[in-house]
């Protein structure tokens, strides 16, 4: 039997051809996967109850990711299958749940970690402050990508026009770019960029447009999302981490929130993208 905690944060990857679905599609796939599994997901109240699933910042259609997150709530009132219970969970239960969930997700979507939440955490959208993208691009004209990046980083302001509440507004996206570097590749260049999400996020397309209209996007992978706490950043769930809420008597950060570099490297090598 798998005992699930009332609140769970799940980490998953979305790679391969399934990356061409939208964020809405992704959410619907998780809803259906939970139903196929008979997982006792808590439903919302109201006229048309739906399972309570909350995701981190939307992944663009076509974008791959090795670090996607999802908060899900379970409710003992929803238990219909003897394989599941809701209560005091264990690392073993979470591992078993991750395996079972991965089995009903499409090829290319795999659960890589899960930690219990105690309910005091910020939502993923609020908590995630920074994300890293690796973007393969090709430019049809000079200058080279690294020159363009240097120019961009040297400027104080990069303005983009957006629509907000039906009105055109102008935003400065320079303040979203924390770090941006590039390496030459046979096709063009691989850009590694850390983007800040607050107070307002930035779309990958906006960033690429700022680099030049001749930029062709070949591949993009979100490799990290980080929560910023007291100047230190950590991942909402590190790869390979399965942990229940640490009993109050013990240290708070030991198991759940410690990164596990070796598992992460392993995962990296398994990329099927």
């Amino acid at each position, binding site marked *: 039997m798998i005992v699930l905690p009332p609140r769970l944060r799940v980490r998953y990857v979305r790679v391969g051809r399934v990356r061409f679905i939208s964020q809405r599609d992704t959410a619907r796939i998780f809803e259906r996967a*939970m139903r196929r599994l008979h997982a006792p997901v808590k439903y919302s109240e109201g006229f048309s109850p739906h399972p309570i699933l909350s995701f981190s910042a939307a992944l663009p259609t076509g974008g791959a990711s090795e670090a996607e997150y999802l908060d899900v709530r379970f409710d003992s009132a929803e238990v219909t299958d003897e394989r599941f219970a809701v209560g005091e969970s264990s690392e073993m239960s979470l591992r078993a749940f991750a395996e079972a969930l991965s089995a009903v997700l499409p090829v290319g979507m795999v659960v890589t970690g899960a930690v219990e939440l105690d309910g005091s955490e910020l939502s993923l959208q609020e908590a995630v402050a920074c994300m890293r993208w690796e973007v393969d691009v090709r430019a049809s004209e000079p200058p080279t990508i690294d020159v363009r990046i240097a120019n961009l980083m040297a400027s104080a302001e990069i303005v983009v026009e957006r629509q907000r509440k039906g009105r055109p507004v102008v935003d400065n996206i320079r303040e979203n770019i924390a770090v941006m570097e590039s390496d030459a590749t046979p096709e063009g260049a691989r850009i590694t960029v850390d983007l800040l999400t607050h107070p307002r996020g930035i779309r990958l397309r906006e960033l690429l447009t700022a680099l030049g209209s001749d930029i062709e996007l070949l591949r993009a992978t979100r490799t990290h999302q980080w929560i910023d706490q007291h100047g230190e950043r950590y991942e909402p769930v590190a790869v390979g981490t399965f942990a229940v809420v640490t009993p109050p008597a013990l240290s708070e950060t030991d198991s759940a929130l410690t990164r596990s570099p070796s598992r992460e490297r392993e995962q990296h090598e398994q990329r099927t993208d």
Partner: protein
Amino acid sequence: MTSLWNDIEPILWRVDKPARYIGGEVGSLEPQRHEGNINWLVAYPDTYEIGLPNTGLTILYEILNDRDDATCERTYAPWVDMEKEMRGAGIPLFSVDSFRPANSFDILAFNVAAELTYTNVLNMIDLSGIPLHAADRGGDDTFVFIGGHCTYNPEPMATFVDAAVLGDGEEVVGEITAVMATWRAEGVTDRHEMWCRLAQIPGVYVPGLYRPTFEGERQTGIEMLDPRAPAVVEKRTVYDLGQWPYPRRGLVPLTDVVHDRLNVEVFRGCTRGCRFCQAGMITRPVRERPRHQVVDMVRAGMERTGYDEVALTSLSTADYSGIEDVVTEIMDPAAGCGRVNVSLPSLRVDAFTVGTAAAIQQGRKSGLTFAPEGGTWRMRRVINKLISEEDLYAATDAAFAQGWQRVKLYFLIGLPTETDEDVLGIVELGRRVVEIGRKYRRSITVTVSVGGFVPKPQTPFQWFGQDSPDELQRKITLLRDASRDVKGLSVRWHDPSASAAEGVSSRGDRRMGAVLERVWRDGGTFQEWGEMFTLERWERALEAEGFSLASVSERDRRRDECVPWAHLSAGLHEDFLWGEWESALAEAGTEDCRWTPCYDCGACTTLSLEHHVASPTAPAGGSQGTGQGLDLRTPVSLGVKPVSA
């Protein structure tokens, strides 16, 4: 040949809705090919969102992949942006299962359910690199098949396809596979010989073995070019749906599609006898799925797919014997179907049916749709859709009383014998329904949706010349003006010029193939999509081939004229159809033969079958076609063409 994925992947960044092209659905397969397999590529000639939920293709996909001697994969029409990228990069039409090119398959089989998709079929054949015309294909070229409701007049498509398959596909796909495997084993490479062998399979029509003859705008006959070609091709009918519990795996898409829910077919056929309705004529007799199997399929389907909704599908689901028992059982937690919403997509117009719908509707009651089709009782007698006004008012009253706030009413205009009074009757019905709704709530809305009638082959109205787009537009204007002052009533209509173009293929002869080819070469793909359609393109093509809408769509056929589908049979006797036409003119109703004596339409007797229903009595409630409350007045001759020979 191997996967084209590496070529396809880079262009997916640049197209709208790339998930249309990636496959990977729950229930999908990547079949391994083995020596000697016949490899099928089943195709829907419209976008992925429309094609993926098609139950017919899903059934064939599974049946063929369950066989040892066949494989089956799927493809859909790439949208305009994707087609442009594919042609630019030299990528042919491909399967979404293994990304193999279409011309590496033995058969490319299209489901044609709507005539306006024909130009997409041409485009997809061309995108495959297969010769567009069947006559230009050699022994090694992929065979192009069509199946589905439109094949009851396949003549406009005759020059492009190797074969059209009539009726249910479950059994015949296996027979086709076996015949092709045999000729391959024997080393046959002569296309004509292959055609002749295909033509021996009941239900398979090979147009290349026939030559129609014409005189002016009329067809005068059809000649057989080989003695092995049968004089009449009869449709295929699966008698016992219980033997075919498909789909078994189903396909759950990764992205948005229409009808995104579990669909379980509860019966085929319909004997309500609506005279305009091709589906109700060509799919006779009625064959119900056993009740326990329906429940089993729902239970297994919910378990497998993760859907939270199931639709019980058929041409008129409220007519299924014991529909209430089945629904009650599905919704009983003990049945193990889980948290499930049941929807009945085709409601009969009576209060009893609404009561059933209300009992199963969970959550918000948003809108309910009824299809009275005709605006006056006279009109409904002509079309044999025998819904009394009392039925309609009771049904809508029940709907509003149960808490529904939006009611949608479907009507046809351009029906035989239609007068302006019949057209205005539509607004009158709508107005009364608004009044009924306002008793319950001020904010209710009633939408009247009108479509232009297109006469279909193998129906009692197959001889009738359809209204011109101008005449349909005039009637729409009448409706719009009359409804302007009715608060709470909105009138919507289907583009009359699209109905005109549909008519070209609906009853057109083989010469319409050249017209279709011109429309396609002129850029006319996705003609079902308003933004892609212009009637001018069709008029240009017709004119270039010496035809006009007047000579094709709008022309009444004479009874002694050889209709282009005269050698194809859905089992119906021609004199039954003509008799029904005369009854229409006489405004005389014909009852539903499930519960009244057989009037020998031909479907059962020709096929040596009978209705396969669980209950010998008519469903409770409502008068529609059940013989209750039929107010048959003295037949009146209306003096409308077509005339008897």
